[in-house]
């Protein structure tokens, strides 16, 4: 045993640096991996998780069928007295129609935002953008734009399932629930649904980071400012509209809100909640954006104010191009840099740097003129005060 053991000789020491370098994938394959993983996540959240929840809920309701009273109570009045009945099979069918309907709308919305983001990306090559920085060298990932649409899918499915299963469960073998049970079940269902929504928001891929503001683009924006003569007054206004697929989806969703109440009048509460949610969404499909001496205001076409920046909060405004994918979808948005946005479509937008707040972005046609007037009004206000 005089021969030295190989393990102890210095030449055979493992080299930690070489091994970590070999295990790290190249940047390109890392991006593809992430995209595939995001795709699986979005599919899981919008399709597989809700389907599993629905399967479990339907399975429970089915195994309970023999023990469920016929007719069973499906609606209670404000005083807690039952005033709506249905057969157990009807209850099961109502559950399936509502939960699967929600699944189709949510998955459709997620799929649509992914498609629109991919299309917008194809039309907006990174090289054509003014200040494509480090963050833009990697291709944007359209699956991340499904975020907002996917967020609600498991949450709504959970709430619907809990309410259906629990309200059936308390009636098994002919037992009658106490007055306080029904509202508690509905509240618990909504609460757990909200909790699932929060968990989903952590699981879903984060929105894309946006481009960086450079000093040169700000200087350019200020040079283009509208110069007003002393005493001259000016206003700029434009209407921003969501692309038609978004509007079509909202119309479909509005019709679907009526399905529960059409199936069973006792489900009016569901219809009402969905109707309110969809109606609030619908108000943001078109908005009028106005710039005047008070600053910038965003109002829905019905006149409801949904955003404003006072003139004295404005540092500088500039016209930018945004993709809904940067903000993770349509509506009221935050992006990875903390910009607040009212995003109705892709394309031109006014971005306002604010004093003591995150930048504010609103998509609007003719953004160049709007930003130019806002900068001119700011210059005038600062100059005369």
């Amino acid at each position, binding site marked *: 045993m005089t021969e030295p053991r190989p393990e102890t000789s210095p030449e055979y020491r493992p080299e930690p640096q070489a091994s970590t370098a070999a295990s790290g994938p190249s940047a390109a394959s890392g991006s593809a991996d992430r995209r595939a993983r995001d795709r699986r996540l979005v599919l899981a959240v919008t399709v597989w998780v809700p389907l599993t929840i629905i399967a479990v809920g339907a399975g429970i309701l089915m195994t309970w069928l023999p023990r469920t009273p016929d007719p069973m109570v499906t609606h209670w009045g404000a005083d807690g007295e039952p005033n709506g009945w249905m057969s157990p099979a009807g209850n099961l069918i109502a559950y399936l129609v509502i939960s699967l309907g929600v699944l189709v709308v949510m998955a459709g919305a997620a799929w649509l935002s992914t498609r629109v983001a991919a299309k917008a990306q194809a039309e907006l090559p990174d090289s054509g953008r003014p200040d494509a920085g480090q963050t833009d060298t990697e291709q944007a990932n359209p699956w991340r734009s499904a975020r907002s649409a996917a967020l609600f899918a498991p949450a709504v499915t959970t709430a619907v399932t809990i309410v259906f299963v629990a309200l059936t469960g308390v009636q098994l073998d002919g037992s009658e629930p106490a007055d306080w049970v029904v509202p508690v079940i509905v509240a618990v269902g909504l609460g757990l649904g909200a909790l699932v929504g929060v968990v989903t928001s952590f699981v879903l891929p984060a929105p894309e980071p946006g481009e960086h503001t450079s000093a040169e683009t700000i200087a350019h924006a200020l040079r283009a400012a*509208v110069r*007003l*003569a*002393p*005493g*001259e*007054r*000016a*206003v*700029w*206004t*434009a*209407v921003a509209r969501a692309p038609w697929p978004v509007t079509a989806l909202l119309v479909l969703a509005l019709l679907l809100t009526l399905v529960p109440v059409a199936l069973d009048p006792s489900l009016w509460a569901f219809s009402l909640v969905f109707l309110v949610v969809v109606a609030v969404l619908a108000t943001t499909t078109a908005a*009028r954006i*106005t710039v*005047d*001496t*008070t600053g910038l205001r965003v109002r829905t*076409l019905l*006149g409801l104010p949904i955003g404003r920046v006072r003139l004295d909060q404005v540092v500088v405004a500039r016209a930018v191009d945004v993709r809904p994918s940067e903000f993770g979808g349509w509506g009221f948005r935050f992006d990875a840099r903390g910009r607040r946005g009212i995003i109705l479509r892709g394309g031109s937008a006014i971005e306002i740097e604010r004093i003591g707040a995150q930048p504010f972005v609103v998509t609007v046609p*003719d953004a160049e*003129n709007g930003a130019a*007037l806002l900068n001119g009004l700011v210059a005038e206000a600062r100059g005369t005060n």
Partner: protein
Amino acid sequence: MIIRIDPASGAPIFEQLVRAVRSEILAGRLASGERLPAARDLATSLDVNPHTVLHAYQVLRDEGFVELRRGRGAVVTHSAPGLDEVRALVAALAASARAHDLAADTVLALVREEFHA
């Protein structure tokens, strides 16, 4: 669209409003079917009397540029009838003026003269 009002310019304010909206429509920046801002809102933004804005909208309606609908406000219409024909004649007029080295102001004065004759 940008609307600029200069009270010092001498032209009546409603006339300035009409000119601003009309040129936006003629330039194609305001498409047919688009709604103009509510008269009350525009008046607030520009610090003028709402009746002045309504007066301007009525003049635009009389010229065939907008339709006034109760509850929907002023909506941009396709275009004033015969506008395309006149637009073609104006293009020819401008070409002729350039060919004869006539200044734009001279041509405009001639046009005004023709209307007031």
